C-alpha cells in the first residue's frame, strides 16, 4: 500500500493511521511485519530493498512517521539507511535476535514535518526491536512519535524565549568543525536552535542549562558517545573519560556530562531490557559466542563466564564491554564481518577488542539475578552454545567442564547446576516435565524433559551414553553428527545436547523448552535418527502430564478425543 502523495497523519485518530515504512530484505519477515502493523491499524508501506526505501524517504519527506528497518540487509544496513536519510524520521532498527550490536544504541530520530526551527530536535537513544517481534512492541511504537511531538512543543516554547541568545552563542561557541562533525551544513545548524535535547522526560525543566554552551547531538556524535561509554564501561563511566575517548575537539566536558545524564540512563535501561529479552529467547548463544573472539586464555574467567548467567554479566555491564560479551556472543560473534557491512566494522572492531576485558571485569561480579528464570536459563545453557559449538572447542581450555562449574558461581541460581545429577533424573517423562515448567531448575531436567518429544524413548537412554562417552573423553565416533565433533570433550557434548535449547523459553513458552531434546538428538546423533515420525510414540504422548503444556492450555489427554474439541480450541490451534 503506497501513499500516492503527500499525506499527513490523521492526528485525530492517533495512533491509528500511523504511517510506517518497513524495510527488510527477508520477504517472509516483511510479510509478517506488514500484517502485524496492519493489525495495529497503522498504514504500512513495505520495502524489500534499502535503496528503494531511501528513494521513498527522500521523495516523500513527510510521508512517514516511523521507519522500521532491518539491520542486516544485503545492499545497505539499517544504519547506513539512517545516515542517508539524515535523521528525519523516527527510526527503529530491527534485528534478528541473534545479532545484536551495541552500535544500535544510537541517537536516531528526528521528525520530518516540524518547522525549520525545530529541525534540530533530536531524540535520545533509539529503539531497536529484536526479532521475533511481539505485537505488543509494535503497538507501542507510536509512543516514539508522540513523545517526540511533545518534546518538540516544549522545545519550541523554550526556544522562543531564548532565540536571540542562541543566535549569538552559535557564532561564538561553536566552531565550524563542530558543525562539520555533526554532518550538517552551517545554515541548517544555525537555524536549528542550539538546544540541548530535552526529550528526556526525566529532565524536563532543565532551564539552568541555558547558560551553558549547547550541543546538538547528532547521530554521529551520539554514536561516538555510545562507543566511548561502551569502551569505558558503564560502571566506570565519567564525562572526562568519555570526552577523552570521543576525541571531538569542540566538545566540552559539560556537554558530555549533561548528555550522559540524559542519555546514559535510558540507554542502559534499554539495552538491559533488550538483552534480557534476548537472553530469554536465546540463551546460550549469547553467553558463549563471544568467547570465540577473545584469544586470551580465558581460563577461569571463561569458566565462570560460561556458567554464570549471562544476565548477571549483562546487568553489570550493560555498558561495559563484557556486556558486549554476554549478550555478546551475540555481539561479538555476529558483529564480525561475516555480515556484509563495512559501516559496522568500525564499531564491531571495538566490540571485538573488548571481550577479554569484559570478561575479567564482569565475571567475578556476583550479581543479583534479575529473575530466576532468566538466570536459570542462562547458566543452563551458557556453556552450551549452539552457535559456538566448534568455536567453543577450540577456545575453551580443556579444564573447563560443564559440570565442574563451581557451585559458587551458581549460588545465585536457584539450584546448582549439576549435570551429572541432572542426568540421573533421566527417567522417562515423569517428573522432568514438571521441572521444566518451573523454570529455575538445572539443565538436566530440561534436557530430559525434552525427551518427551518425538524423540521418544530413545531420548533418555541416549543421553546417558552420550555423556558417558564424552566423559571418558574417548573418541566420539563420527556418528555424533556433523558437528565438528572432533570434540571428545565434555563441553562439546554438552553443547551438542543443549544445542537445541536455543530460544530459551520463558515460563510462557514452555514449548520451546520442551522440545529441546528433540533438537539435540537430531543434531547430535547424526543421521541415524532422522526418521522422526517413527520416534513419536503415542504412548509417550499420553504420558505427558498436562501441566507441561501450560502455555498452550489444553488438556493433552483430550487431544485425541474428538468430542472434546473445545479444549483444543482454547489453545493455540487452528480454530
Amino acid at each position, binding site marked *: 500500500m503506497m501513499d500516492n502523495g503527500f499525506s499527513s497523519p490523521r492526528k485525530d485518530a492517533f495512533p491509528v493511521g500511523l504511517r510506517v515504512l518497513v524495510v527488510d530484505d*527477508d*520477504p*517472509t*519477515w516483511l*510479510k*509478517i511485519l506488514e*500484517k*502485524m502493523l496492519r*493489525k495495529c491499524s497503522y498504514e504500512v508501506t513495505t520495502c524489500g530493498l534499502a535503496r528503494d526505501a531511501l528513494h521513498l524517504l527522500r521523495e516523500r519527506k513527510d510521508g512517514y512517521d516511523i521507519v522500521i528497518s532491518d539491520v*542486516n540487509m*544485503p545492499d545497505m544496513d539499517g544504519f547506513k539507511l539512517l545516515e542517508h536519510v539524515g535523521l528525519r524520521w523516527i527510526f527503529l532498527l530491527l534485528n*534478528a535476535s*541473534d*545479532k545484536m550490536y551495541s552500535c544500535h544504541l544510537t541517537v536516531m530520530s528526528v521528525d520530518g514535518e516540524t518547522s525549520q526551527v525545530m529541525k534540530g530536535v533530536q531524540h535520545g537513544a533509539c529503539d531497536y526491536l529484536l*526479532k*521475533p517481534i*511481539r*505485537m505488543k512492541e509494535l503497538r507501542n511504537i507510536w509512543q516514539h512519535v508522540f513523545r517526540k511531538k511533545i518534546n518538540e512543543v516544549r522545545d519550541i516554547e523554550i526556544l522562543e524565549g531564548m532565540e536571540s541568545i542562541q543566535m549569538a552563542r552559535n557564532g561564538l561557541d561553536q566552531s565550524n568543525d563542530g558543525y562539520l562533525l555533526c554532518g550538517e551544513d552551517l545554515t541548517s545548524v544555525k537555524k536549528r536552535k542550539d538546544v540541548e535535547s530535552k526529550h528526556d522526560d526525566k529532565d524536563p525543566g532543565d532551564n539552568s542549562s541555558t547558560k551553558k554552551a549547547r550541543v546538538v547531538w547528532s547521530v554521529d556524535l551520539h554514536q561516538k558517545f555510545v562507543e566511548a561509554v561502551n569502551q569505558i564501561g558503564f560502571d566506570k563511566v565519567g564525562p572526562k573519560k568519555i570526552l577523552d575517548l570521543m576525541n571531538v575537539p569542540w566538545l566540552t566536558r559539560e556537554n558530555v556530562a549533561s548528555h550522559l545524564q540524559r542519555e546514559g540512563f535510558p540507554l542502559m535501561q534499554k539495552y538491559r531490557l533488550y538483552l534480557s529479552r534476548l537472553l530469554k529467547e536465546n540463551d546460550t548463544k549469547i553467553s558463549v559466542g563471544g568467547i570465540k573472539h577473545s584469544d586470551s586464555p580465558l581460563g577461569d574467567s571463561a569458566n565462570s563466564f560460561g556458567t554464570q548467567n549471562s544476565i548477571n554479566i549483562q546487568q553489570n555491564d550493560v555498558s561495559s564491554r563484557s556486556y558486549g560479551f554476554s549478550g555478546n556472543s551475540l555481539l561479538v560473534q555476529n558483529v564480525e564481518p*561475516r*555480515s556484509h557491512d563495512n559501516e559496522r566494522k568500525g564499531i564491531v572492531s571495538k566490540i571485538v577488542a573488548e571481550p577479554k576485558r569484559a570478561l575479567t571485569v564482569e565475571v567475578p561480579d556476583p550479581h543479583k539475578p534479575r529473575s530466576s528464570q532468566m538466570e536459570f536459563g542462562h547458566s543452563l545453557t551458557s556453556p552450551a552454545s*549452539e*552457535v*559456538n*559449538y*566448534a568455536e567453543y572447542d*577450540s577456545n575453551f581450555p580443556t579444564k573447563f567442564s560443564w559440570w565442574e562449574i563451581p557451585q559458587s558461581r551458581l549460588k545465585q541460581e536457584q539450584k546448582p547446576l549439576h549435570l551429572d545429577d541432572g542426568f540421573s533424573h533421566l527417567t522417562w517423562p515423569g517428573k522432568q516435565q514438571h521441572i521444566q515448567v518451573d523454570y529455575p531448575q538445572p539443565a538436566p531436567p530440561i534436557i530430559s524433559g525434552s525427551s518427551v*518429544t*518425538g524423540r521418544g524413548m530413545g531420548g533418555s537412554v541416549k543421553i546417558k551414553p552420550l555423556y558417558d562417552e564424552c566423559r571418558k573423553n574417548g573418541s566420539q565416533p563420527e556418528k555424533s*553428527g*556433523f*558437528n*565438528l565433533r572432533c570434540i571428545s570433550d565434555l563441553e562439546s557434548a554438552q553443547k551438542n545436547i543443549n*544445542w*537445541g535449547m*536455543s*530460544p530459551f523459553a520463558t515460563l510462557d513458552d514452555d*514449548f520451546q523448552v*520442551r*522440545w*529441546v531434546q*528433540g*533438537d539435540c538428538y*537430531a*543434531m547430535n546423533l*547424526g*543421521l541415524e535418527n*532422522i526418521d*522422526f515420525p517413527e*520416534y*513419536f510414540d503415542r504412548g509417550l*504422548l499420553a504420558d505427558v502430564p498436562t501441566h507441561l503444556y501450560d*502455555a498452550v492450555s489444553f488438556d493433552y489427554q483430550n*487431544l485425541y478425543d*474428538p468430542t472434546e*474439541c473445545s479444549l*483444543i480450541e482454547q*489453545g*493455540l*490451534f*487452528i480454530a
Partner: protein
Amino acid sequence: MLGLGADRLRADMNRLLALLFHQGVLDEQFLQLQQLQDESSPNFVSEVVNIYFHESEKLLRNLRGLLMDRECSDYKKMGIHLNQFIGSSSSIGAKRVRNVCVAFRAASEQNNRAGCLRALELLEHEYCYLKNKMHELFQLEQQRLLAAGVRYPMQN
C-alpha cells in the same frame, strides 16, 4: 455429517501440530503466525510459509552449489546465506531447521568442509521434513474447510 468430518479433521490437524511442537520442528513463532491469520487474510499462514519455502529452496541450492565447489568453498558466502536462512526460519518458527543452520554456520566459520557437508545433508533433511509436514497440515486445513462447507482456494 459434514460437521463431524470437519471436527475430525481439525483434531487431526491439532494432533499433527502437537507432534511438530513436540519434536521441536516448530516453535511458538508459528503460533504467532496463526494468531495473525484472520478474516482479512484467511490464508496468511500458508502464504507466509510458501514464501518461506520459496526462499529456502533458493538458499539451499546456493549452499549446495557453494559446498560442491571442491576448489575453494566460499565459506563466507555460505555464512551469509545461512544468516538469511536463520532469519527466515525464525520468522515462521522453524526451530529445527534454524538450529541446523546455526550449527552449519559454525562449521562454515571454521572452514570445516566435512562438517558443512554433514550439516547440509541434515539441513536438507530437516527442511524436507518440515515441508512435508506443512503440506500435510495445509491439506488437512483445506479438507476441513471444505468439510465445513467453506470455499477455500486450493493452495500448494
